[in-house]
């Protein structure tokens, strides 16, 4: 099949397949860690493309972007440079669910990321399709086990906790026949693998936006023993903004004071003129048209086999499943400053073109709209990520990593987060160092990856704050405090940046201690302050910290009776206030985390033979064999494994 006469051979450390949001972070991480890296894309003009919604962040996704940034990733910095509107969501709710979301100038975002990649040392960009992954049987008797955080201990104990997989990556081959020798490969193929797009009866075998699909790699993966499955997703139409009647719509503006995503962005640099989004609604007429044409929807007609996401329902789905709702919200969002195109958020569809036009035109403001790009559904090959370790390496192939939508996730942010971790860990693998594994108690990224590799995800996985059991600790405002240290440890965060966060940590803890140990009595001054903020008077002396626990008192207005306070930066004040105000809840979660950590630290050897653990229930045994958890904690999260099974397992391990 391949041009066999091409004898061209090149050597790299790491090959990245795909230059979407996962691929970009992966490539940058590897190259920045000093590895010779090559990134393949089917089109260099579509690097960091945003083929669906024109925004970055949102509930819990904003958290991911902050975490990527804290670890030394690029997404946050790039959106800070290219956003055209920004909003902090959920500000009326608790700090744990505040979330940044920015509308991007799509082309600007893509170009700006391309520039970063082009400017990156050790990184080569190549247009072309990788269609074969080359591996060899792994004959090395024993190498240091890289998936295990405590490998040294286990080696000393004489336990081969992580046996080598059977296979090892040695290179890839492109469609044009060139061989690229390498030590690690990261698959970030997004929705391109064997993709097909559906718009009613019209089916095209392309990736998103009509780009060329990747049709060869799937076979090579299957040959290696990788199991593939089909997922689907969809996107709404793009309108010509000139044909929209904005006078009928309600305007949605950005925040007056914009907060940047990146901890490194100067907040003043993001205060700029913003564009607006617009709100409108569907109505009974819209729904009537949809219902009348359901038989022409590929999903309802059964043409689409892939599983679609429930959290991102098409307008057809909404009308069918929520028949009692007489209208649905529709947000009209500009795709950028370079174009008139407008994204119709809330109305993704796979209905045929004529139905689309009729349906969109029933929506107020869109009566005379002209569709630039039709809405479509897309189906693609991906994997069940239970084939991966938390390091994002395949369990059965050394050096093969995967990230992004290929792993069964959805969303730019989820993809970027995995790309970064896969990139770091591919680098660690090549350098023969321990992988970076973030756990559920320290990051959304940890929750995301752990959910992907331990759950039966039957639809594209999207991040949600309800999936993080310790979400009060995993706030977007403290991502730097949580994760900078890891970025520093692997080498993506510089010394001065790391020093800065250490200093911040020190200031916060000093100020919290000071507030807890500074007492005020029922003096005239204090009483008149309390009166001024509408708070109940004091009868005995209390600490400033306990006053700060009152809802009507905040750090700023407390200054009236706190003359000795040091001059502190805003981000320190914010942390101090949160830590004191929600102390009870935060302490509770910290206790749970202690227990969680204990379970995570109890490792299970990969060569465990579950058939020898006689007292396990059959269902539990099957699940354990299928998922091969690395710790007791992870085993306990598998569905079908009961607490009793976990106890049995603990005793078995102790016995050995």
């Amino acid at each position: 099949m391949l041009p066999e006469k091409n004898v061209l051979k090149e050597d790299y450390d790491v090959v990245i397949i795909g230059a979407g949001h996962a691929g970009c972070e992966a490539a940058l991480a590897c190259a920045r860690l000093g590895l010779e890296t090559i990134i393949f894309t089917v089109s260099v003009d579509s690097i960091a493309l945003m083929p669906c919604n024109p925004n970055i962040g949102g509930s819990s996704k904003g958290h991911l972007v902050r975490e990527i940034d804290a670890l030394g990733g690029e997404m946050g910095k790039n959106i800070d440079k290219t956003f055209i509107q920004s909003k902090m969501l959920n500000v009326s709710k608790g700090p744990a669910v505040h979330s940044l979301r920015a509308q991007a100038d799509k082309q600007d975002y893509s170009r700006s990321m391309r520039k970063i990649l082009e400017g990156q040392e050790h990184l080569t960009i190549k247009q072309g399709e990788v269609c074969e992954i080359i591996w060899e049987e792994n004959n090395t008797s024993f190498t240091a086990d890289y998936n295990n955080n405590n490998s040294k201990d286990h080696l000393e104990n004489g336990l081969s906790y992580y046996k080598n997989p059977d296979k090892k990556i040695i290179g890839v081959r492109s469609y044009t026949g060139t061989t690229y020798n390498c030590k690690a490969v990261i698959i970030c193929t997004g929705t391109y693998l064997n993709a097909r797009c559906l718009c009613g009866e019209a089916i095209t075998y392309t990736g998103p936006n009509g780009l060329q699909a990747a049709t060869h790699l799937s076979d090579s993966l299957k040959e290696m023993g990788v199991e593939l499955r089909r997922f689907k997703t969809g996107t709404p139409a793009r309108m010509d903004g000139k044909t929209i009647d904005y006078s009928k719509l309600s305007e949605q503006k950005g925040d007056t004071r914009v907060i940047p995503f990146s901890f490194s962005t100067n907040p003043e640099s993001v205060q700029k003129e913003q564009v607006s989004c617009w709100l409108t609604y569907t109505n009974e007429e819209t729904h009537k048209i949809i219902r009348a044409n359901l038989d022409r929807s590929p999903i309802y007609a059964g043409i689409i086999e892939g599983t679609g996401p429930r959290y991102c329902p098409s307008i057809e789905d909404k009308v069918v499943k929520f028949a009692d709702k007489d209208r649905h919200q529709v947000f009209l969002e500009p795709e950028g400053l370079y174009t008139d195109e407008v994204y119709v958020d809330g109305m993704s569809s796979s209905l045929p073109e004529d139905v689309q036009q009729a349906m969109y035109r029933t929506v107020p403001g869109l009566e005379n709209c002209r569709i630039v790009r039709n809405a479509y559904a897309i189906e693609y090959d991906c994997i069940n990520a239970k084939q991966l370790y938390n390091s994002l390496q395949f369990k059965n192939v050394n050096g093969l990593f995967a990230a992004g939508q290929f792993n069964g996730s959805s969303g730019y942010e989820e993809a970027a987060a995995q790309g970064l971790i896969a990139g770091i860990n591919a680098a660690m693998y090549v350098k023969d160092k321990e992988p970076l594994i973030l756990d559920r108690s320290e990051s959304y990224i940890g929750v995301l990856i752990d959910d992907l590799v331990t759950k039966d995800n039957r639809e594209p996985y999207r991040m949600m704050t309800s999936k993080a059991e310790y979400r009060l600790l995993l706030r977007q405002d403290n991502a730097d405090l949580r994760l900078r240290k890891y970025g520093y440890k692997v080498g993506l965060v510089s010394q001065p940046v790391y020093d800065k966060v250490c200093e911040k940590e020190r200031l916060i803890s000093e100020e919290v201690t000071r507030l807890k140990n500074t007492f005020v009595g029922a003096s005239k001054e204090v009483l008149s302050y309390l009166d001024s903020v509408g708070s109940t008077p004091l009868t005995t002396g209390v600490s400033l910290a306990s006053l700060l626990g009152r809802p009507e008192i905040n750090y700023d207005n407390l200054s009236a009776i706190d003359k000795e306070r040091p001059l502190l930066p805003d981000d320190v004040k914010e942390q101090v206030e949160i830590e004191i105000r929600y102390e009870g809840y935060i302490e509770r979660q910290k206790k749970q985390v202690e227990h969680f950590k204990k379970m995570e630290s109890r490792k299970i050897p990969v060569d465990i033979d579950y058939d020898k653990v006689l007292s396990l229930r059959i269902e539990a045994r099957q699940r354990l064999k299928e998922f091969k958890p690395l710790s007791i904690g992870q085993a306990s999260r598998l569905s079908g494994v009961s607490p009793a099974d976990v106890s049995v397992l603990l005793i078995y391990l102790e016995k050995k």
Partner: protein
Amino acid sequence: MPEKKYMSDYETIAAISTALSESGIGIIRVSGDDAVRIVNRIFVNPSGKRILNKAATHTIHYGFIIDADSAKADIESDYEAGFEDTIDRNIIKKIAVDECLVSVMLAPRSFTGENVVEINCHGGVFVVKKVLSEVLKCGARLAEPGEFSKRAFLNGRMDLAEAEAVMNVISSKSDSALKASVSQLSGSVSEKIKKLREEILYNIAFIESALDDPEHISLDGYNDKLSSSVDSWIKESERLIESNDSGRFLREGIATVLLGKPNAGKSSVMNLLLGEDRAIVTDIAGTTRDTLEEYIKLGEIGLNLVDTAGIRETDNKVEQIGVDRAKKSADKADLIIYVIDITEDFSQDDIREYEDMFNSFSGKKGIILLNKIDDLKKNSLENIKEYGLIKAGKLIEGINTGSYPMIEFSAVTGEGFEELKNIISEMFFKGICNGSDEVVITNIRHRQCLEECRDSLLKVKESIENDLPEDFYSIDLMSAYSSLGKIIGEEIEDDLATEIFSKFCLGK
């Protein structure tokens, strides 16, 4: 967010470590870091002093277990404070739960390798259960099946050879405990818990949808609504705790079935026992087509009473189902009360039918009620008593009824009722019929889950009152939801996501 499959191996645990019976002694074992502190809250020596915290290891102490609430042994309060006070002798008498011997074995020289306190109290289901509840109130958690052995092994107090046995115990006992938890739950209680869980989940899903998609789903004005729902859920969980205490929660007590031919008067007997007109009583044979189930207390003893459709061959389909169910209930029963209409003629056919009936359940304990003795009397026949006995004698001659006691009975006048009570309680105390240990444990476990649920709901209420943001509510709502799940044996898994996506229409 769901905190699933919590496996705690550092909490202090407690359980009854002897078989439950009406006599002898009962031992409650407490193990863990806080074992001594916990028991010290509720144990005083005869001079009214709390002495356990100063007790040397491997010592045994005489004194009283006192009621935790009355002793103000509030677990929230500082443990040292207030425990120096001596409790007056007269007060001890009032608040003592039991007189007992308590032994203290400190880590690591104990069965589990942790601090262990054993309370030797008087046997008897009631006392042992009450002492255990006091220990749980003071901060211990009910031990999981096999958990003491598990800790013993993990702390190196058992050798490797025993590991396999420990694993077996854990796995088999957990399985049966879970089954017991679900199967012993009475149908109406199970329905109530499911309904309560559904309502809680719906509200969590609503909050989470709004957090996830604030531009589509608004929480404006939600607090007031939630606040009144939480109030009603707290009330509901308290009602459930009450019904747990009164024994109506579980299919507790001796599983008892009323069997007899159609129109032998089973339903009337049942109504007499219940003291209310529960089953439909008519003179037409075959009125009870289904089985009726009720929990009653006869003196000290609980009966789980099932009235059945009369056993006879029938062509009527509906009735046939009832008859099949009757046979099934009888198969599962601990005790069968045969109701026989003494005014019958006892033809050869009748006798054969009785024979079949007794033979089918020959392994079961039984009592025979010779019902409608008043009718015989009404008909002013000579030598009524003898007539009845002769008839019954005929019956017994013909078939083997084992050693079933026979009682002349009238559901109308209540004749024989006292005798029936006496016979049943004699059977119970002699151990012929026994409510199983498992039932008692399940009952305590359920109570603990219900209390957890209520406490979590109280926290939600507190958060609402303190004006905390909505995302804090769902943390405790989720705990309440999962506590209830433990009772009916349902895991959380993807409940929340499913609820969110099926009930709320999210934006993109």
